[in-house]
């Protein structure tokens, strides 16, 4: 959807909310509850619709809303009593206003005569009988003035109210309130109110204590994260309250005004810039954009479905976007729901199994009912997962500030380029990404990038580039942190590893293996512990946190060109579409996203390369054939290829391999149960699941199995890492 259309759509959604508000207010008034709060709410609703309509040049709507608003203003100022008759007129006017909104939305026609009649009735209510010239003027305001804070609609935040009270520790740690206030000022327009009510007498004052507090009214499009980030380094050393200012009248005013529901009628102070509004509306609309997801990825695929207009939409004038577009839900409740759905899936699988064991025919009513149940279970699961899917933007947007700070500390000019912020992934994954990403970006700047002088000497621009990208790839999210620095100094890495006793001094290692040494516990290349990356947290911790998320991390480095860290993570930590296979009497699950095809190997297609290494000819190419039973140590003699089934899989880097298993049992959605959390990490195994019959099955980590069978060295390295980790 183009940005303007998206904003327009948002406006109409908000209109529906305002209309609902208007109606409930008027109904309350009709029931005799005509207090100023209700009248203000009603006025605000009409005023907001008028303001938004002005921005979209919806002239007829603005005109009627203006007349309506004028009557309400009379009532607000107490010049018009809310008698029964008046409220009835207002209610009918609300209907006409709703018609106008609908007409503006879908282009349907409106009853001009009825509108005119109501407008006259409304004008007759006011003592001055409505003033059209003022209407013109007012209309002009909305067309050319920046949209007022009152205009965009109640649910959008117009900014934040930040109450901040430093503790003595904040000052003791050499932080300054002024700096924090200045930093806040960078996020938008601020109004600072000082609260010195806690200040004692001069004689009793402890010069090193903290007595002052500030309330900052921040208007602008900064999000809460950005606001909180300002206080990131004084966390715990101050009292901090951040609350949104709802975009209604008076929000941009001084804090003293906040208690009063007074609405500026035409030109409120602290107008919002239309650009700011645009950005905000776009941001608000962003999660609705269908994320780029491969089919078969459970969570975001569902998100995409949700984002598409439902078939009932677009059926003409009757369509009505739901009021209350978003609700806030406690994350714990969502997690509880997800857990329950996970149990439901397992239970459903068990039930299926029982039914099959009981010998019901496939076409029997019970079996068919179960199929439907399965379908429903899956839909529930997808929908629940979609609730948790969020764009990685929330983590990515914390990084520019980090980059600025690290750049300042190291004296290296750095530019951060981010891509794919809209890529969606499970909230838990997002939350747990922040730390490893922070560390990797620090590392990229501190260790990855060379000094500006060195860069210039190497013919590169003095400014280094750190690239942070996210994308969906084969049912996983792949996040890359790349720098254009000098690449890994392999000689140095190797000598340090030898020095620390991580490898034998004469070990012959490939470049890749050397690069991977930096992930080993106890490895840190900085000979002096620097402020920036040397915080006793090595890349091994990064690797472990990624692994704990069921992810993998890989490094690619080219001397003089830079290094790229690639993290591949599951989109959700909860479910997986799996191919259930058996290997040497064990039941295993292979993630279906990795499987390209399955085939029965013919004797003539399998060729031995000496040792246990085999390749299989698939169409016109040879692909390594990996015996899963051998790779996981279930057997010592390889299985005769013709006795098994080969799963052609595509790994992380696009490399293909064929996994040889004994038999395929079927395809099933499985609920992932972490092996790390319940046991420990096992190379070659990503997680476990509970099957329908109650048995535990291991879920294969395809990439590790492929890597393992490629070189015995890397297998040993993996095992060593796992053992030490």
């Amino acid at each position, binding site marked *: 959807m183009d940005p303007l259309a998206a904003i327009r759509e948002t406006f109409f959604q908000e209109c529906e909310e305002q209309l609902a508000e208007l109606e409930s207010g008027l109904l309350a008034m009709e029931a005799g509850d005509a207090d100023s709060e209700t009248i203000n709410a009603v006025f605000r609703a009409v005023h907001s619709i008028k303001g938004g309509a002005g921005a979209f040049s919806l002239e007829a709507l603005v005109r009627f809303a203006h007349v309506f608003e004028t009557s309400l203003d009379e009532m607000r100022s107490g010049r018009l009593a809310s008698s029964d008759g008046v409220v009835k007129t207002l209610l009918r006017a609300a209907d006409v206003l709703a018609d106008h909104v609908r007409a503006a939305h879908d282009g349907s026609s409106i009853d001009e005569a009825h509108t005119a009649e109501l407008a006259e009735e409304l004008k007759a209510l006011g003592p001055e009988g409505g003033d059209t010239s003022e209407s013109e003027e007012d209309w002009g305001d909305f067309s050319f003035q920046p949209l007022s804070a009152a205009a965009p609609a109640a649910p959008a935040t117009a900014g934040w109210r930040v109450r901040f009270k430093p503790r003595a520790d904040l000052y003791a740690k050499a932080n300054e309130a002024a700096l924090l206030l200045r930093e806040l000022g960078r996020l938008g327009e601020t109004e600072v109110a*000082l609260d010195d009510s806690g200040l004692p007498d001069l004689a009793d004052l402890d010069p090193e204590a903290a007595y002052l507090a500030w309330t900052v009214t921040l208007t602008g499009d900064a999000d809460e994260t950005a606001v909180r980030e300002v206080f990131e380094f004084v966390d715990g050393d101050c009292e901090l309250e951040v609350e949104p200012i709802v975009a209604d009248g008076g929000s941009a005013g001084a804090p003293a005004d906040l208690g009063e529901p007074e609405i500026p009628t035409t030109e409120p102070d602290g107008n919002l810039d239309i650009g700011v509004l645009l950005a905000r509306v776009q941001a608000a609309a962003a999660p609705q954009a269908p994320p780029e997801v491969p089919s078969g990825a459970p969570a975001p695929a569902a998100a995409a479905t949700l984002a598409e207009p439902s078939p009932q939409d677009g059926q003409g004038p009757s369509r009505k976007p739901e009021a209350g577009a978003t609700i806030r839900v406690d994350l714990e409740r969502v997690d509880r729901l997800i857990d329950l759905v996970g149990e439901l899936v397992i239970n459903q699988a068990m039930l299926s199994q029982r039914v099959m064991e009981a010998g019901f025919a496939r076409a029997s009513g019970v079996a068919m009912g179960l199929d439907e149940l399965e379908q429903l279970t899956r839909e529930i699961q997808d929908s629940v997962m979609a609730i948790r899917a969020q764009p990685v933007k929330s983590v990515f947007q914390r990084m520019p500030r980090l980059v600025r700070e690290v750049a300042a500390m190291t004296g290296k000019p750095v530019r951060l380029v981010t891509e794919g912020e809209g890529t969606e992934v499970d909230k838990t994954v997002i939350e747990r990404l922040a730390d490893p990403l922070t560390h990797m970006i620090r590392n990229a700047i501190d260790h990855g990038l060379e000094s500006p002088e060195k860069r210039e000497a190497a013919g590169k621009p003095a400014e280094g580039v750190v690239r942070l990208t996210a994308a969906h790839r084969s049912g996983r999210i792949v996040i890359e942190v790349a720098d254009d620095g000098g690449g890994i100094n392999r000689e140095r890495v190797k000598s340090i590893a030898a020095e620390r006793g991580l490898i034998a001094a004469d070990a012959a290692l490939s470049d890749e293996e050397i690069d991977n040494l930096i992930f080993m516990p106890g490895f840190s290349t900085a000979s002096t512990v620097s402020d920036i990356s040397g915080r006793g947290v090595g890349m091994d911790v990064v690797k472990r946190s990624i692994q704990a998320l069921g992810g993998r991390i890989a490094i690619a480095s080219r001397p003089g060109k830079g290094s790229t860290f690639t993290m591949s993570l599951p989109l959700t930590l909860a479910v997986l579409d799996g191919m259930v296979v058996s290997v040497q009497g064990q039941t295993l699950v292979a993630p279906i996203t990795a499987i390209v095809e399955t085939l029965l190997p013919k004797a003539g297609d399998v060729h031995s390369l000496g040792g246990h290494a085999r390749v299989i000819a698939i169409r016109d190419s040879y692909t390594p054939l990996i015996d899963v039973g051998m790779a996981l140590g279930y057997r010592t003699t390889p299985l005769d290829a013709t006795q098994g089934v080969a799963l052609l899989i595509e790994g992380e880097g696009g490399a293909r391999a064929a996994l040889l298993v004994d038999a395929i049992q079927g395809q099933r959605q499985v609920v992932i149960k972490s092996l790390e959390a319940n046991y420990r990490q096992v190379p070659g195994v990503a997680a476990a699941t509970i099957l329908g019959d109650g048995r535990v099955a291991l879920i294969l980590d395809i990439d590790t199995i492929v890597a393992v069978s490629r070189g015995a060295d890397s297998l040993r390295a993996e095992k060593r890492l796992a053992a030490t980790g």
Partner: protein
Amino acid sequence: MTDLSQTPGATSLILAESLDMTAASPLKAQLLAARGSALSLDASAVRRLGGQCLQVLLAARAAWTADGGDWRIATASEEFADAVRLMGCPDLVADALTPSDFAPLQD
């Protein structure tokens, strides 16, 4: 440049360049010592103003006001004026002359 902060019978204090945490205690002592007479502060050399020195200044102003005495910041550097505005008490420098005020005066 004439000393515009000079008021007959008043104590005049020149504030230190850095009013950070370490300056809060000496500042309080200086101010307490001056209590009882009209006080005119010269903040034209101040480059940094921290929250704790601001507390001392605000408490001092309150004390002088309670005593019915005259207390004011007569001159302020741009940095000082900026800092108090930033910290939400622009009234502290409402009467103060800042460098930008001096230019036209000297003309």
